[in-house]
């Protein structure tokens, strides 16, 4: 079904264009000099050395203090004649202290001077820069590979990973000040907002995700049906073309092979022959069963086709294939409407002053034009209200549409019309089912021939 494949390719191409475009934009929005600044690594190593140094100093001080306590105890209790205690003296302490002396070059010492008041601040900044660059370097290949993975597999999870990857890169880049584009989202008017570089980038990434979902929908709805049709047509052709092989024919073939082999090799031929004989025992059985059911299926299909020429189409679900032209026709207006609505509402929520002032003028006029209205908390309130509003509208519409239909809650069983009735548990019949098969059969059969039902 080439039309289905073309449709899937159409959506894939749109995704590719968006993916390449937004990936490049993200890549060029990041300060690559900072990202690939490997001197940060040495700084981090320096910090690690500092950590080891601090740890060692702490341990040394602990050891010195313990030694001093023991010496003091020795002085206080001279009667303790332990030779080990006797060996501890001030010169040993000097040796221990010398171990952590920066001038002894026993191990490399950090250049960081902790006495500097800026040291702690620098530590955070340096770690933050290192964390930012490392995270971006890890996330970038994940995001790109996931995008390509989606194109290959059509799995929406991969598209979501790609989206998340790029978004995290942007957030980390903003946090670590590794971003080259203007980070301001100007929400003074809708066009200013749309043309804010950060908004455009974020929005492009979101659009890419939506297209991925749309592509996934097309693949989900078209691929299984196309594959099903192909598969079933193949099965049908195989069943129709099936001709059972006669047992003699099979036997003859095997005998020929066996004799050829045995004439060439003695022992090998004997074992081969034995294997063939053993296999034949099973094969004959299997072949007989397969051939029989295949023949039966063949004749059954023929009878079905005779009674309904559409049988093949129904089996292959060809009559239930989705309309490809409708898929594309509905895609474009739906997408445009959806994206426009999202952008418009996002703008309203990002700068909620207008809408909030409108409501405040009714309820709290004192709060009109308050600076607080532009704070993030009010955006949260606005989005919460919009979300609840959509849910409410959805619920009302669902109620209205389902109110028109009467849901059948009872269990409906199309019972077989039997010649006899059996003593078995039947589900209670609904009035809609009409006259039971039992009553019908009683009327039709003659009293002489009527079998009795025992309850």
């Amino acid at each position, binding site marked *: 079904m080439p039309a289905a494949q073309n449709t899937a390719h159409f959506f894939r191409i749109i995704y590719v264009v968006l993916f390449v475009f937004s990936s490049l934009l993200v890549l060029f929005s990041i300060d690559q000099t900072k990202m690939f600044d490997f001197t940060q690594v040495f700084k981090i190593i320096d910090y690690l050395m500092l950590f080891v140094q601090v740890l060692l100093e702490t341990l040394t001080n602990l050891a010195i203090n313990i030694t001093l306590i023991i010496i003091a105890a020795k002085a206080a209790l001279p009667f303790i004649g332990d030779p080990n205690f006797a060996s501890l003296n001030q010169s040993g302490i000097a040796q221990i202290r010398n171990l952590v002396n920066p001038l002894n070059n026993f191990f490399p010492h950090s250049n960081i001077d902790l006495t500097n*008041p800026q040291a702690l601040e620098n530590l955070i900044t340096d770690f933050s820069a290192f964390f930012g660059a490392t995270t971006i370097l890890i996330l970038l290949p994940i995001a790109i590979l996931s995008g390509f993975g989606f194109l290959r597999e059509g799995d929406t999870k991969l598209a979501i990973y790609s989206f998340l990857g790029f978004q995290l890169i942007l957030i980390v880049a903003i946090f670590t000040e590794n971003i080259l584009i203007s980070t301001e989202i100007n929400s003074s008017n809708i066009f200013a907002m749309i043309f804010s570089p950060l908004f455009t980038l974020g929005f492009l990434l979101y659009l890419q995700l939506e297209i991925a979902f749309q592509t996934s*929908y097309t693949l989900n709805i078209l691929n299984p049906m196309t594959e099903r049709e192909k598969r079933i047509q193949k099965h049908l052709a195989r069943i129709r073309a099936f001709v059972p092989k006669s047992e003699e024919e099979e036997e003859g073939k095997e005998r020929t092979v066996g004799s050829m082999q045995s004439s060439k090799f003695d022992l090998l031929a004997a074992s081969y022959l034995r294997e063939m004989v053993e296999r034949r025992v099973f094969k004959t059985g299997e072949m007989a069963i397969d051939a029989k059911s295949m023949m039966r299926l063949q004749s059954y299909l023929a009878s079905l086709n005779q009674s309904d020429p559409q049988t093949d189409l129904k089996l292959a679900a060809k009559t239930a294939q989705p309309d490809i032209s409708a898929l594309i026709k509905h895609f474009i207006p739906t997408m445009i409407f959806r994206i426009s609505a999202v952008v418009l509402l996002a703008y309203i929520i990002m700068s909620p002053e207008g809408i909030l002032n409108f409501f405040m003028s009714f309820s709290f006029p004192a709060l009109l034009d308050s600076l607080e209205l532009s704070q993030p908390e009010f955006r949260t309130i606005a989005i919460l209200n919009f979300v609840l509003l959509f849910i409410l509208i959805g619920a009302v519409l669902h109620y209205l549409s389902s109110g028109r239909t009467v849901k059948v809650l009872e269990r409906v069983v199309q019972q077989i019309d039997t010649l006899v009735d059996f003593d078995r548990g039947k589900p209670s019949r609904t009035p809609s089912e009409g006259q039971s098969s039992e009553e019908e059969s009683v009327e039709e059969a003659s009293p002489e021939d009527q079998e009795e039902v025992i309850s």
Partner: protein
Amino acid sequence: MLSSRGAFIAIGGILLLSVGLSAKGIGTVTTMIPILFGGEGLTQQSGQNQTVGYPTGMEFLSAFEILNSSPIVDYGMFLGILLLLASVIGLPFFQASANASLIRVTRTVDREKAFAGEYVHVSVKIENTGRRRMDFIEVYDAIPDMFEIVLGENFIITQLDGKETKEFSYIIQVSTRGVYQIGPVKVIIHDRLGFYFEEDVRHFYTEVLCYPSYEDIRRMEALSKRRQQGKMFGAHKTKQKGMGDDFHALARYYPGAPFKSLDWKAFSRTGELMVREFEAEKNIRLLVFLDHSGSMGAGIPYNTKLDFAIRSVMLVMKMAEERQDLFGLITFADRPTSYLPPGAGKAKFFQLLEILALVEPQGRSDPLAAVDYVMQRLPRASFYVFLTDLESSDSEIFTEAAKRARSAKNKITVISPFGPLFETKLTDLTSTERAIAEAIFEEYLGYRKQVEDSLRGLGVEIINVGPDDILPNVIKTYMKAKQAGKGSV
């Protein structure tokens, strides 16, 4: 309502909103801490130089100043808003169009009754009774585990325009006798992006009656065909001579022989008086008592004592039907469950198949109740064949049942599947298991001997059978009864 994908997007939005708000919060805290703890921030900010300072030891807070600036807060909030809106904006449209109760599903089967191993074609029609399009609809038609789909698939994924109908079908193979219900139908509607879904399960079932396998009968018919073609010379059964229409043989004349039977051509050929003899046409009235008590259900699945007994009944009844004998059936457990009075013809045979299709092992066995039930309705002498394992009841009940039946001049044969033979093969067991099995055999035989002794005293023939010889024995019993004219009409 919200699918996992939709929920993921919504939760992502909430998280990003939280990130924005948290960033704003942390930013505010970094401003407040110097003021609260040191007062220096306030002093220095309000001073002449307007420089921001942190109390001693809190200088590191300056690293978080970025959070106080708008980009990270704004971007977090913007993305959060975008995702949250995306997850809910389509909801009203979806709810307005996707109403699963507007989908009408109908199912038809090409045959409601089939023999085990045969095929059934199931067609499912789905109709959108509403006016709005449904972009993504999945319909699953559940089938019982006993059925196998041989062609087609029992589900569909498609889209439906308003008032549109689509149809798909599949072929199933029924494997075991019984009544099965195809259904329920599950309808799932999604939106295009897969954010929302609605599902509905329709408890709408179609019954299919599966008769026991016709394989034995087919084999028997093939065998009789070969016999007709002369491939099985010597396998013909000798019929009794008597007053029938079919010529049997020529015999010497004997005093008292009717003159009309004299064969004058034979007389002229041989010079001796010869008479023509004809085959007797004796039809019998056969009634099978099928025990379907719980113990008859023992054995390998689908090859239990009851399954073999059913196959035997089917086979013998088919033979009786072809030979125009009267055949009937009573099934019983702790009470008679169904009764088909003796009669002839194809319709009768199909009635019998329907009864056999539904017999299930249950309860204890009470042959006396079954005999009483039949004798009240069938006063004429018949040939009773009991298919029972003689296990689920006391020996006295069997004896009493036989007494009752014999009192009305009925001939009785009991064909008894021997339990242990159906449950295991001695050759498959280890030596210890074999010893245990043999002990069980002994115990079984002891009990059976008791019953057999008391029944044989009443002139009842008892045949113990295993899975390998139950079918031949049942046929043999029927043929012998036919020859001996047991229960002749």
